[in-house]
Structure formats: structure tokens, C-alpha cells
């Protein structure tokens, strides 16, 4: 009836019969990545656990390839869904190869001896994540990033069509975060694997996922493509952001702006102002900035940090009206900072602003 490989219908999850999140509807095709985001303790892990059948769901059902997981035996399920868990596995005295080879468990015979085919699968999975050279290393001694890659290889060689990862990027530094998500993307595409994961990093979630599910409260707050989810209001609402702000273009966060009448006027543009804005924010000094075009990168950050922005519409020359507004604003400030190193046809008025700023302390910043 549907082309979805993975589907949940009216899924309600929770502990001890007490519902935590209700009516979860997920539909995912092979090769797609779904990311769960939301505040701590919202139920992301609970949902993932229910999908992987660690927890019994309270109502509703989870379907993989059209079959309900309740009707699958442990062994059948293990061939369909593999997991990467946030806790470190025990794996005492095991090499990375041993750990990856445990992914072959559902396929080996009674004594669990690896066949040539199993070995080939282990090798190809390890090569795909770039962990083949770690094969002889003791698992408990590799770095966090290497460990996640090895565990991903383990999940891969389980040959499941679905991989569930609970916060796989925690503890990883940015290099390994990027590597891991890149791997997931490539793997989803090359192997046609459906991936369901939870992430804390909004910027990563935005860039790596095909679908995003916002988990908050008793019902799923939102579900959709990243461009629908990663809007300023959605994210502010999802995390109850009271201080600071989220920028949907970059997926970046800014600290709370300083309140009050602007004391400093920053002349900026083209990215020259961002560092100065943040410096003033850290000092707790409210500031005004201008004259920025609305398509200027400084404008994005200024929206989150500046008390007053004197701006001009994109692609337009700065009008006399806007210039006068800026001049008016400068009169209220005790200092003017100029971050610009040069001027072009579009922002020539900023030079005039700088030259007519008057007797105030003038700082050449940037």
C-alpha cells in the first residue's frame, strides 16, 4: 500500500505502561535518513528503543518491510534492524575485528564460526567506514571517533536495511562528527539503508537528514523536511529558547543580546562586523549597526545581537533616507566603530557616515 520500508502507525511509547510520546507516525524509504531532535528527556531514546524492540510499545505498531516487528522473531528482527547505542559496549579483550564480527551473529552457525563470506562482509563493512586498519586493535583502547566507526561497521555487516543510532555523535569532536554523518549519508545512499538517529547538534541534523522529527511533550511537535523544521520560530519553540537565538541559515546559535539603548554604533558589512558584534555582546554593551544590506552576512548576526539595525533592502543603493536614520542613531551613541576596510558603489554612504560621525571617539575596528 505504501512504498515506505519503515513505518510506524499510531505508535505510543513509554515505560511501565505510562505513555511518554503518543501517536508517532513515521514513514521512511530505503536510503533516507530521519533525525530525531528535541530537548533532553523528551523521549528520543524511548522512541528509538521502541523501534528496536528493546521496549514494548504501548499502542500502535512498527512495520519493517510491511511486517510488524511484534511478529518477527529476535533473529528475524536482527537481520532487519541494527543498532548503535550511546553506551560503550563492554567488549572486554576484543579486537575491533571481533566487535564488527559480532554483527554476523544472526548468520553464523551454532558455534558462531565465521565463514569466508562472513569474513568478506566484515572486511567490506570495515573498509567502508575506514576502520579496516584498526582490525587488530583492542576495541577498548581506540578513540571515541574510531569506536563509533567500528560500531557502525558492526551494524553494517549485520546487513540490516535499517540502522538505528542513538546519539552517535556525542563525545565526538567536530572532525569525527562530520566524518560519521558523511559516512551515514553515503551508506544510506550506497547500501540503500534507512537510517533513524537522534542528534543534539541542530546544525548537523539540518544538513544530514532527509526528514526531521521534533520530539517534545506528549505528541510529536513537528515532522517534515529540514527546511520546514529549521525555522527560527520552530526551534525557539521546540527548545523553549528564552535567552539567545538560533539562526536557521547557519544552524548556529548566538548568546542573548544586550538590552537597552545603543551605546556604540558599528559600521560594518560583508562579514566584517560579526566579530565586533560578539565582542560587544560579551562586554554587555548594547549597540546599533549599519548600514547593512538585508542580504549581508553581517545582517544575519546583527538580527540576533544588535539593539538597532539600520538596513537597506537587498541589491539597492543606500538611500538618503536610510543614511539620515543612521546619522540620527549615531547621535545617541558615544562611540563609533568602523569595521569596513573599503567601500563599493553600493555602500558608499557608509564612508560618508564615518566621515560625518563628528567628534565622538572614532575607532577603526574590524
Amino acid at each position, binding site marked *: 500500500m505504501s512504498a515506505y520500508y519503515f513505518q510506524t502507525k499510531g505508535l505510543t511509547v513509554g515505560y511501565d505502561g505510562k505513555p511518554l510520546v503518543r501517536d508517532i507516525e513515521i514513514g521512511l524509504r530505503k536510503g533516507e535518513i530521519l533525525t530525531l531532535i528535541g530537548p533532553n528527556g523528551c523521549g528520543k531514546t524511548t522512541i528509538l528503543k521502541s523501534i528496536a524492540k528493546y521496549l514494548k510499545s504501548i499502542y500502535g505498531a512498527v512495520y519493517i518491510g510491511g511486517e510488524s516487528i511484534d511478529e518477527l522473531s*529476535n533473529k528475524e528482527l536482527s537481520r532487519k534492524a541494527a543498532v548503535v547505542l550511546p553506551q560503550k559496549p563492554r*567488549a572486554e579483550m576484543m579486537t575491533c575485528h571481533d566487535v564488527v564480527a559480532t554483527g554476523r551473529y544472526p548468520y553464523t552457525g*551454532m558455534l558462531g564460526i565465521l565463514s569466508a563470506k562472513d569474513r568478506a562482509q566484515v572486511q567490506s563493512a570495515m573498509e567502508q567506514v575506514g576502520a579496516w586498519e584498526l582490525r*587488530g586493535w583492542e576495541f577498548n583502547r581506540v578513540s571515541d571517533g574510531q569506536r563509533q566507526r567500528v560500531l557502525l561497521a558492526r551494524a553494517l555487516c549485520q546487513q540490516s536495511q535499517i540502522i538505528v543510532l542513538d546519539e552517535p555523535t556525542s563525545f565526538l569532536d567536530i572532525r569525527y562528527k562530520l566524518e560519521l554523518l558523511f559516512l551515514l549519508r553515503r551508506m544510506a545512499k550506497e547500501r540503500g539503508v534507512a537510517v533513524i538517529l537522534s542528534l543534539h547538534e541542530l546544525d548537523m541534523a539540518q544538513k544530514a537528514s532527509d526528514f526531521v522529527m521534533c520530539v517534545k511533550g506528549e505528541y510529536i511537535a513537528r515532522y517534515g523536511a529540514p527546511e520546514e523544521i529549521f525555522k527560527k520560530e520552530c526551534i525557539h519553540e521546540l527548545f523553549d529558547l528564552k535567552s539567545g537565538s538560533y539562526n536557521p541559515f547557519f544552524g548556529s546559535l548566538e548568546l542573548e543580546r544586550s538590552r537597552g539603548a545603543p551605546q556604540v554604533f558599528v559600521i560594518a558589512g560583508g562579514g566584517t562586523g560579526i566579530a565586533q558584534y560578539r565582542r560587544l555582546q560579551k562586554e554587555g554593551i548594547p549597540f546599533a549597526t549599519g548600514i547593512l544590506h538585508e542580504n549581508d552576512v553581517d545582517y544575519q548576526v546583527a538580527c540576533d545581537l544588535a539593539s538597532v539595525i539600520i538596513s537597506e533592502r537587498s541589491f539597492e543603493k543606500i538611500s538618503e533616507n536610510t543614511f539620515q536614520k543612521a546619522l540620527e542613531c549615531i547621535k545617541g551613541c558615544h562611540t563609533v566603530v568602523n569595521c569596513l576596510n573599503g567601500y563599493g558603489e553600493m555602500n558608499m554612504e557608509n564612508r560618508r557616515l564615518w566621515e560625518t560621525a563628528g567628534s565622538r571617539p572614532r575607532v577603526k575596528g574590524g
Partner: protein
Amino acid sequence: MRITAKKSGYSRVFVIAAASLATLLLLVILNISLGSIPVPVEETIKVLLGMDADETYRSILWKIRLPRMTAGILLGGALALAGYLLQTFFNNPIAGPYVLGISSGAKLAVACLLMAALGRHGGVGSAALIFAAFVGALFSMGFVLLVSRRVRRASMLIVAGVMVGYICSAITDFVITFADDSSIVNLHNWSRGSFSGASWEDVRIMAAVVLIASLIIFFMAKPLGAYQMGEEYAQNMGLNIKLFRASLVVLSSVLAACVTAFAGPVSFVGIAAPHLVKAFLKTAKPMIVIPLCFLGGAIFCLACDLMARVVFAPTEVSISSVTAVFGAPVVIAIMLGRRAAP
């Protein structure tokens, strides 16, 4: 580079297995020829091969030393495997039938059965003893399991086990105090742990129990390997966790019970043997570790029994004292090692 490393990995296993077998053989010979009456090696060989030999030697060997030695091998292996299973089950390298109070629980049940049977004519059959020990072992295990549910800390588990052990031992002593004078001596010796007094009949029964249980454990190598990754990963590999955990409990209790029924409580073998075996092998692969654990436990027990009999001859020391002398330092080493590499 890698290929040689792998090769050396396998040859390491081979060398250790061969060395273990040789040591066991040596200990077997020492165990049957040394004692209050030394039996010359050529006589030993004659007796073993069924050739014409001195009658005194023949009866010493057949009636006393050979059954005792065989019991040592079987029960030592059983202890090591029971320890290995418990360590896997609790994910705790110093878990074992003795420290978790399982041996003491079995001891208490057996003491009670013996006391109850004293008034009656004829003794108690070996099967009944094993069964009583099994029930006692399960009770202690049940208590330790309850504690482990409530407290997640590994050290608390051991503390709970040691306490159960003390309680059971105290009650056992209490029970023995009220025994007839004549029966006390035997019961007292047994309750401190000893391989002495094993008959061929006993050996047959313990062989049946221990070998069958060990074989089952060997065929559980695959799930044991999966379980080493942790419960959640094991489940994701398709392992039926409840059934598996239950079988670990039953098998380790059967083995510990069998040892206790025949030899009383024997300390530390269950911790020391698996640890030493893994340290030598440098792997935790159950397929390799299980048989060598059995061998290691047998070697450990034979060596300790030999010392128990010979060092202060003609006085015999309890086996548990000797195993503690050699086993307890291993436990300390494990704990220090864990501290060094968390």
C-alpha cells in the same frame, strides 16, 4: 605484519593449550604418587596399565588417590566454569561461586540434609546431596540477583555475596554444633572444604553432572560471545536474553552445587582460573576460553590439593585454605589492574 600477528595469536592458544595439558599430566602423576606413602612411578604405571603390581600400592591408588585426583580435575574444572559464567553474567571480573555466597548457600542446604539424615539408617545418596546443594545455591543466587537489581554498583554485589556467605556459614556452624559427636568430625572437615573421601561412585556422578554441564556451556560459546558486548547489543543480534540469563544462572548453580556437595566450599578457583586463562590467552573468545578454563581450574585444584596433602603431611590442610593463598592475590591483582586502566 597483520598476518604474522594473527598467526601468533593462534599459535599462542596452541602453545598454552599444550602447556596446560602437559602441566595437568605432570600434576596427575605427582598427585597419585606423592602422599603419606609415596608410590614409585614404575609401580604407578604398572597399576594404571593393570599389570602385576604390589597389592598395597594398588589399593592406595585405586581406592584413594585415583578417585580423589579425578574428583579434583572435575570439580576444579566445574568451579572455573561456574566462575566464568558468573563473571559474564554480572559483568564483574571478581564474581565467583564463593564470593557471591553461592557455595555457602549450597553448603548450608547440604549440612541441613545431612543433619536430618543422621538419625536415619544409611547415609544420603549423592544425587540427593547434589540436589540439596543446587537448591541452596539457587537460594543464594536469588538473593544476590535481587540485590543486583537494586544496586548497580559492582562492588555492592560482591559485598552482598560475602554477607550471604557469612550468614549461611554461621547457620551451618550452628547446625553442626548440634550434631552427634561422632558425625561432627566428618561434617566439620567437609564444611571447610576437602577433596578427601571421594569414592568411584561419587566420581561417576560428578563426572556425569560436570561433563554434561560443561558440554552445554561449550555449545553456548556463541551467545556468550554476543553477551560479552553487553545485553542490549546481544539482544540486537537476536539473542533471547531472558532464556540465556536463566540458563547461565542454572548452569553456574549446578556446577557450584556439584562441587559443594562433594568437596564443600572451595574458594577463589572460580575467579583465579578464568582470569589467569584470559590473561595468558590475551583473548576472551568463549570458544577458546571455555575449554582452557576447565583445564586451568583442574590444574589449579590439583596443585592446591597436592599442597594441602603433602606440605604439612601427615596433617591435611583444607583445600580452601590453599586455594585462598593462591587465589586471593589474583583477585587483588585484578582490582589493582582495574584501577590502573579504568
